[in-house]
């Protein structure tokens, strides 16, 4: 119960504005650790009130309209204030929209979609690694190269970083994948292959 209350208090502190958190969160948590019994409930209530007060009544350097002095939008600054949850949500939506637009742009010409097949594997095309479907082979290779670098699994398989997984690299795949198995349990978990 005590651990649960502490976790809850930590979350309350994390939701405070960054500047306040950086300055006082450690001490507030230390004080929470000193509390006993019913004092814990009172401190949780105090933490919640503090959160509301800091978010609603103490905009600090960030104005009510989300502007810094001089009408500089908060989102475009590298100040010590993090963007609020709303700005992060907008950023995520914009990123998703941009990703969709780029994806559509590259796949909008079905007549030119030709899979980039890896030659000489002796496999039917269905089982060959398709690096990229796109309007041009060069563009596809560039995109695949970036995509392979971003994906830890593909990056491990693509030993020479050329954006393709060659026959030799496929043969070496078990070894390459074992290299990602950080805890050596013979299995790859999401935590081991996450970016």
């Amino acid at each position: 119960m005590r651990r649960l209350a502490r976790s809850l208090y930590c979350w309350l502190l994390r939701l405070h504005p960054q500047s306040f958190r950086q300055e006082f969160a450690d001490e507030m948590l230390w004080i929470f650790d000193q509390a006993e019994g019913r004092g814990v409930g009172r401190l949780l209530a105090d933490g919640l009130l503090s959160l509301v007060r800091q978010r609603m009544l103490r905009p600090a350097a960030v104005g009510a309209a989300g502007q810094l002095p001089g009408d500089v939008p908060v989102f475009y600054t590298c100040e010590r204030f993090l963007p609020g949850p709303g700005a992060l949500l907008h950023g995520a939506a914009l990123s998703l929209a941009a990703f969709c637009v780029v994806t559509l742009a590259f796949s909008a010409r079905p007549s030119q979609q030709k899979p980039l097949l890896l030659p000489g594997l002796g496999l039917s095309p269905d089982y060959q690694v398709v690096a990229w479907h796109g309007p041009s082979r060069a563009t596809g290779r560039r995109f695949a190269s970036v995509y392979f670098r971003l994906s830890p699994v593909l990056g491990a398989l693509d030993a020479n970083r050329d954006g393709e997984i060659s026959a030799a690299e496929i043969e070496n795949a078990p070894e390459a994948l074992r290299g990602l198995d950080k805890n050596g349990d013979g299995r790859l978990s999401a935590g081991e292959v996450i970016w």
Partner: protein
Amino acid sequence: MKPNLDAFLPLSSATLHILLALASEDRHGYGIMLEVARQTEGRYKLGPGTLYDNLRKLMNQGLVEEVRRTAGKENSRRRYYRLTSLGSGVLAEEIERLRGVVREARLLLRPAPGRV
């Protein structure tokens, strides 16, 4: 130029108690909470959220300042706070104002002769 102390008055309860707790010595946040509880015999309990919100405001106003001091390993993360001369002046003015309030209240609340 002498600062206009009246601009800070009246002080809120939390502000008054924090300044009062720092009047005798420099204290860290938890020390201020304990001192406020002691001074009020446990009737006024200051939460850390209220405390640090007020401390930040007081530091911005120049009434309180943070003190750098070397502490033992256990206290290395603690930050100490001190009343500035401006803070002392404001506290003295507030106490004087409260003295007037108490004096007036005593006069008004004194039972009139012959009244039960």
